[in-house]
């Protein structure tokens, strides 16, 4: 199929960017979205132009590196997939596809479609861990039974890949779904309860410092999340936060 691409090109963080039009022929339905961009880049390189830079790594939907706002939606029109797993069969011959970087003040553009998501790392560093040293003689893994439901629910929260689609989709560029997924995972496990108060206070403080917007419960994040992280996590973080505020 033949596609008309409108792609954001930006030399570096300090240069102004703009949309550039490309026409690409010979795209097949079996290709992933990123393989389609590979072909475009091969063309550009052969023409002596600079290829379009985009973030990607595992190409199997788990590392969370690939981003891309495709036709106004993070990871494109398909649900529960990352851009690398989006296949071209979801598009039709003659389609125009608008490709932009994830937009948020807390995700500054590095080049073309690549953004800097280190704000997510800093949120995790503020408290997204359980303070346990490596010793080789922590208690036996089966010493504390955990109700299956709680363990499964913690796992559901833990599947977040940190891609930032929630921020990109949210009209407020809020990072609540991301932050709440980690808070929730630990809040539901006995090992995580010990530091629960400090954790939620510190992570939310960092989230606000990074300049993300406020949550207005539109639910866009949940719909666009490639891993199906639920809004329940945000409600749980709200509860945790309110309880922690009263305590602390």
């Amino acid at each position, binding site marked *: 199929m033949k596609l008309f691409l409108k792609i954001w090109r930006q030399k570096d963080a300090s240069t102004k960017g703009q*949309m550039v039009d490309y026409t690409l022929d010979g795209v097949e339905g079996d290709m992933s979205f990123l393989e389609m961009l590979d072909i475009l880049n091969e063309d550009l390189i052969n023409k002596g132009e600079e290829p379009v830079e985009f973030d990607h790594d595992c190409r199997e939907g788990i590392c969370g590196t690939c981003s891309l706002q495709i036709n*106004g939606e993070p990871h494109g029109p398909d649900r529960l997939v990352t851009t690398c797993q989006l296949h071209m069969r979801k598009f039709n011959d003659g389609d125009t596809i608008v490709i932009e970087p994830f937009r948020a003040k807390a995700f500054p*553009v590095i080049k073309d479609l690549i953004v800097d998501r280190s704000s997510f790392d800093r949120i995790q560093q503020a408290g997204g861990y359980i303070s346990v040293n490596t010793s080789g003689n922590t208690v036996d893994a089966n010493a504390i039974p955990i109700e299956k439901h709680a363990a499964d629910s913690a796992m559901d929260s833990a599947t977040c890949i940190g891609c930032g689609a929630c921020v990109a989709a949210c009209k407020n*560029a*809020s990072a609540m779904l991301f932050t709440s997924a980690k808070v929730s995972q630990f809040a539901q496990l006995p090992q995580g309860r010990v530091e629960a108060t400090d954790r939620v206070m510190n992570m939310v403080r960092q989230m606000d410092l990074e300049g993300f917007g406020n949550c*207005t419960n539109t639910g866009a994040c949940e719909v666009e999340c490639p891993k199906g992280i639920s809004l329940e996590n945000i*409600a749980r973080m*709200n509860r945790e936060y*309110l309880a922690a505020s*009263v305590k602390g």
Partner: protein
Amino acid sequence: MSGLIKSSIARKLVMALSGLFLVVFLTQHFVINFTSVIAPETFNQWSHFMGYNPLVQFVLQPILIAGVVIHFVMGFILEAQNKSARGVSYVKYNGGANASWMSRNMIYTGLVVLAFLGLHFYDFWVHEMAYKYVEVKAEDPTRYHAETVEKFAPIWRTLLYVVSFVLLSLHLWHGFASSFQSMGVNNKYSPVIQKIAKIFAVVIPLGFAFIAIYHHLNPITH
């Protein structure tokens, strides 16, 4: 506690609580207004009570006004912060793909409701204040029904009210249900709560609109 004031989650909570407070107010306001349709006598009695009871006038009314102001001011602050959090805007943003129109346009539905409040205050509150404190007229426990009905004689006012109620409905459609999520309520009862909130969001504004249209269609003939 200071975190509670400064943080984004606290701001959400403030919106939720002030919103819920306004929902409660809306409910009682509707109940009283509805008596203007079914029992003008009762309406007069209750209106008079509300207008002259010191507790209502000097405690509840300022709280209500504060609630309205907090909800709106916080709404504007949040909107400003949220707008700036995007940084560069998207060339193409398909918001409709993942969120309802209501949830994405709270600021606009809210602004219309705010504008309506201006009109509504002008129509009733300013009139009351003038009656009581400027012109210092004598108490008249029977005047309220007639005055209210008379307000809806012009079609333009009735229409403005009805349109505003539609936007109020859209505002409540997202806002009421959403306030529970902000307070951390998301459990097995949530689907029921959501449903009730949505029914409320439709029924109450519909009721207000009915009252306005009813009075427009049934003027008092002297």
